[in-house]
């Protein structure tokens, strides 16, 4: 039986090299391309009729749009809509990546720390740049909130700085760990079905079905969490709490 972590193996499909660095088109890249196609197809094909009264696909596309729009409206406010396309792309990329990973024999690019870490770092760097661009050095006030007694500064400021700097780690590790653990769990449980045979295998089979349903929920939920945390960070940068 294959190792439960075999599914995370990067397999180069087309060797590509840029400036001596190996950037082969791998199974990970393939699923990223599929995710782009699925996102584009879902939204643009779904909206092809541009009906006043939406059909099923158009409703879904509009629902996705409104979902992200509400996240920004509730967590950031009107100012946040300048960054709507980025937040929306982020949500679609993570959501479609997570959901595609639920297909058998597929590859979950969001289960790789390199991908989630890069996305989290882009969010972190972007938010920090926006913060300094809007507020200048006053943005540092984020580390020492108004109204806090001056005496608490030696403790409060380091804590706030550490919590701010740990954001990209928590953001990336949360998504990577959730995806990885869920897929390993599924693989292990499914392995028990084979090893226990037809009679007793029914128990892990039922568990596998349950966990599969759970994993679909987690696929959506983690995309939501990743996006909403990005919105909350963006809110800090724009509105300073």
């Amino acid at each position, binding site marked *: 039986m294959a190792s439960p972590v075999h599914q995370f193996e990067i397999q180069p499909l087309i060797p590509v090299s840029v400036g001596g660095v190996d*950037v082969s088109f*791998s199974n990970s890249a393939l699923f990223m391309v599929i995710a782009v196609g699925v996102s*584009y197809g879902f939204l643009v094909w779904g909206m092809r009729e541009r009906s006043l009264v939406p059909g099923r696909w158009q409703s879904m596309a509009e629902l996705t749009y409104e979902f992200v729009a509400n996240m920004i409206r509730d967590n950031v406010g009107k100012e946040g809509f300048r960054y709507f*396309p980025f937040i929306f792309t982020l949500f679609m990329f993570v959501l479609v990546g997570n959901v595609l990973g639920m297909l058998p024999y597929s590859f979950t690019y969001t289960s790789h720390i*390199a991908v989630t870490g*890069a996305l989290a770092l882009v969010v972190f760097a972007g938010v920090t740049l926006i913060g300094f661009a809007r507020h200048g050095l006053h943005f540092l006030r984020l580390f020492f909130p108004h109204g806090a007694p001056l005496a608490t500064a030696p403790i409060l400021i380091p804590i706030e700085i550490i919590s701010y700097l740990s954001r990209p780690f928590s953001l990336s590790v949360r998504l990577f760990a959730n995806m990885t653990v869920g897929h390993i769990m599924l693989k292990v449980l499914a392995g028990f079905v084979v090893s226990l045979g037809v009679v007793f295998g029914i128990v892990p089979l039922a568990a596998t079905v349950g966990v599969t349903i759970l994993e679909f929920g987690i696929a959506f939920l983690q995309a939501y969490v990743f996006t909403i945390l990005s919105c909350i960070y963006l809110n800090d940068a724009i509105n300073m709490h």
Partner: protein
Amino acid sequence: MLPQFNPAFFATQLFWLAMCFGVLYFLMARIAVPRIAEVLSERQRRIDDDLERASQLKTQTESAIQAYERALAKARAEAHAVLQRSQDEIDHLVQTRNREVAERLAGEVRAGEQRIAAAKEVALSEVKGIAAEVAETAVVRLAGLALDPSRYREVVAAVVKEHV
């Protein structure tokens, strides 16, 4: 060890992540998001337009109802005035007719009374003549006296005067 921690594949993932995320961002920002936003704002515009038109129509309806009620009140007042005028005319006519008829009847009554009085007079004078002749005949037959005929008429006239 998890394949995730193998640095040999970091570069390829980051490269394709950048490519795919970039392409997706372009597609979303340039095509998908404006298209959905356009449909949603068009729908919102239509809803607002319809609501506005509905409120306009409502105002129109209300003003039409007001105009109708004003016209109704005016018509009622006019009808009332016409009725009042006709009533007055009828009353006047009835009074005039009543007076005329009463006058004519009174005239006829007077003429009738005069005719009755004249007839009575004639009848009485004839009765007096007959009575005088009867008295004369009775006196001649019973007493055999021949008195002056004017005496009988005087006596009859006196008796009639006494009884009538």
